[in-house]
């Protein structure tokens, strides 16, 4: 008996040790994204990108990335995508844990700064001349949104005007409008008239809370406060409780009280709101320029869609920010860093921008519309609206996450009657002040 239990014990120990050894050995070969086994001397490059399945511009970007992978057998590119809504949380958490991949998508402004402060990004100053001088595709100032204190960290792929009103021409015509209203009063009248026709005027999906902030308030508030407002708030010279900002919150309050939105605005998301519009449940949807991708992809043949900027006050500003930048991990050096530079230079090139133009995304690069591009009339219309507009800051690209969080919450609170515009402004200001300290 004694002997047997000893054997049993020995067996257990052997089993345990072998399990531990198995765990500590390499966690299996990761396959490269092109599926082929790669040779040993290939440089491994991990790339993270936020994912927007079904959006033509995302696909255009990924096509170029894939092509890069095929043409560079010496670089083993491993692509890892995360759904858009979760990507930033994942990135920030991994950054806090010091576990970032080699190259990864970043957002400009306020989202870039903590990453720079934390020292996880590597400036790309050395290779900026590739675009500004060698190819001439970008100008110095195009890099501004991705620069912090004189250092540049990423190359922008496109510009992102975040406020576009897409409307159903036929529904507006039925309500007696052959043209989109040119003043805010007419716009409010249109809402009343549409309601008179038993049509929900505007589709809104705010369950993720960023839509009212990024799409609505960024532009609406700018029409009241002017371009420098957020900067002045950060300096403590102005405050969210200033009457002009409160007025912009009152616009949201008024639209909600007028029942301009679908009732379930807080339980559907931004994809569903575009669906509502395309299904003919509403006459308009206000979304960023990115909305055009899914509108063009999914719209019924016979639907006549127009696009306009929101008529509000005398200004023609639209909140706009640079987008789809890719940054490099500060720890990269030697061949890996070289590979990362090669990657950026390859991806951000003529081809990417031409493809983005073709799918209707506004870009900042000096690239002509390619001859074979058949721009949809709606795309052309949108590009005209954008050309006519002046840029304004986007709130979530400018505010710190904590203030932005509070702003989004208060906007949601206004929609359910929890806060009045004044109370909301006070609550936002309170958080802004603790952040300033």
């Amino acid at each position, binding site marked *: 008996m004694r002997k047997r239990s000893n054997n049993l014990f020995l067996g257990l120990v052997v089993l345990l040790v072998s399990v531990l050894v198995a765990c500590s050995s390499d966690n299996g070969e990761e396959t490269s994204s092109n599926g082929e086994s790669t040779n040993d001397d290939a440089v491994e490059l991990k790339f993270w990108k936020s994912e927007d399945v079904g959006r033509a511009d995302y696909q255009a970007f990924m096509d170029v990335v894939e092509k890069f992978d095929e043409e560079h057998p010496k670089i083993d590119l491993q692509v890892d995508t995360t759904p858009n809504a979760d990507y930033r949380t994942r990135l920030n958490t991994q950054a806090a844990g010091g576990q970032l991949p080699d190259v990864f998508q970043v957002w400009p402004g306020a989202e870039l700064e*903590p990453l720079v*402060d*934390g020292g996880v990004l590597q400036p790309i100053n050395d290779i900026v001349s590739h675009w500004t001088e060698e190819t001439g595709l970008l100008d110095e100032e195009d890099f501004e949104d991705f620069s912090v204190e004189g250092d540049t960290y990423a190359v922008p792929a496109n510009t992102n005007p975040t406020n576009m009103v897409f409307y159903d021409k036929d529904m507006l015509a039925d309500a007696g409008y052959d043209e989109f209203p040119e003043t805010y009063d007419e716009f409010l009248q249109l809402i009343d008239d549409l309601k008179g026709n038993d049509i929900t005027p505007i589709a809104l999906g705010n369950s993720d809370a960023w839509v009212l902030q990024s799409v609505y308030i960024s532009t609406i508030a700018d029409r009241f406060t002017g371009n420098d407002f957020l900067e002045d708030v950060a300096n403590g010279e102005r405050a969210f409780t200033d009457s002009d900002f409160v007025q912009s919150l009152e616009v949201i309050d008024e639209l909600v009280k007028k029942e301009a939105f679908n009732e*379930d605005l807080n*339980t559907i998301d931004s994809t569903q709101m575009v669906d509502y519009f395309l299904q003919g449940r509403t006459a308009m949807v206000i979304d960023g320029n990115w909305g055009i991708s899914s509108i063009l992809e999914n719209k019924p043949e016979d639907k006549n869609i127009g696009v306009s900027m929101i008529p509000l006050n005398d200004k023609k500003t639209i909140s706009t920010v640079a987008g789809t930048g890719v940054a490099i991990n500060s720890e990269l050096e030697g061949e890996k860093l070289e590979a990362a530079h090669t990657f950026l230079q390859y991806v951000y090139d003529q081809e990417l921008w031409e493809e983005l133009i073709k799918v209707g995304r506004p870009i900042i690069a000096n690239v002509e519309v390619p001859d074979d591009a058949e721009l949809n009339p709606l795309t052309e219309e949108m590009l005209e609206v954008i050309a006519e507009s002046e840029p304004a800051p986007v709130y979530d690209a400018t505010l710190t996450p904590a203030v932005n969080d509070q702003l989004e919450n*208060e906007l949601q*609170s206004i*929609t359910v009657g*929890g*806060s009045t515009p004044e109370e909301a402004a006070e609550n936002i200001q309170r958080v802004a002040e603790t952040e300033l300290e």
Partner: protein
Amino acid sequence: MHLLKKPWIIAVGVIPALTIYLIFSILPIFISFYYSFMSWNGFSEMQFIGLENFKEVLQDSVFWLSVRNNILVVLASVFGQIPIALGLALLLNRKIKGAKFFRTIGFMPVVISTVVISITWRMIYNSEYGMINNFLDAIGLGFLQQNWLGDPTWAIIAVCITIIWQFVGLYFIIFLSALQTVPSEILEAADLDGASEWQKTRYVVLPSIWNIILISVVLCISGSLKTFDLIYVMTSGGPANSTEVMATYMYGKTFEGLRYGYGSAISVLIFLFSIGLILITTKLLRRKEV
């Protein structure tokens, strides 16, 4: 048997699991204590600010709202899941036609992923195309329609109903297997004594599974205190924080608002609340046991 007499052999068996448990479960609790005294955004230098975070949390109305909601979830779970599960188990413990079928149906929600449940229920609750509102309309009760998840007064109730639905099956199965251990001799004896069905349940069946019921209550409370995934997917705490529970609020502040120190302070309070609540319940239930 010999094996268990040597403490060092027991130690060899326990240490690997214990180490992993300590590193990944216990140690982080203490690290959170440490972080909770700091102002830290995850990247920058940490700054010691003493009890500032706690001061702020305790004055934070949204935090107290999340505590209230969390207590609602606990109450809904204890007084919803346990009685319903017990009732169903008592019913299906008899020879009923299709008992197996009902058992499977009842257990189904437990094996479905929470994300799937959340999204499905979000559709059911939707005010414009949702099943509930359409059904109410169809049977002429249209005036009862609500914007279930969009209206702050209804949202938390709607979420609680989903939570009850999700976990009834778990306790149902636990109770059902407990009921099958009730010795048939005692039941037969009760029959001979002329006990009614109600008396048999009240005086024979329930006392013999009382311990299991107590364990279920404790499981239920601790489970509801850490509820996160269902609410995160269904409403992400909205609209306007009306369905925020402590865990979702902590997550939002920490990882979305990038305030790791503040979030840690919330975690510490969750920890204290949970310990307190569990201590109280075990004490209350012990007394009953005697």
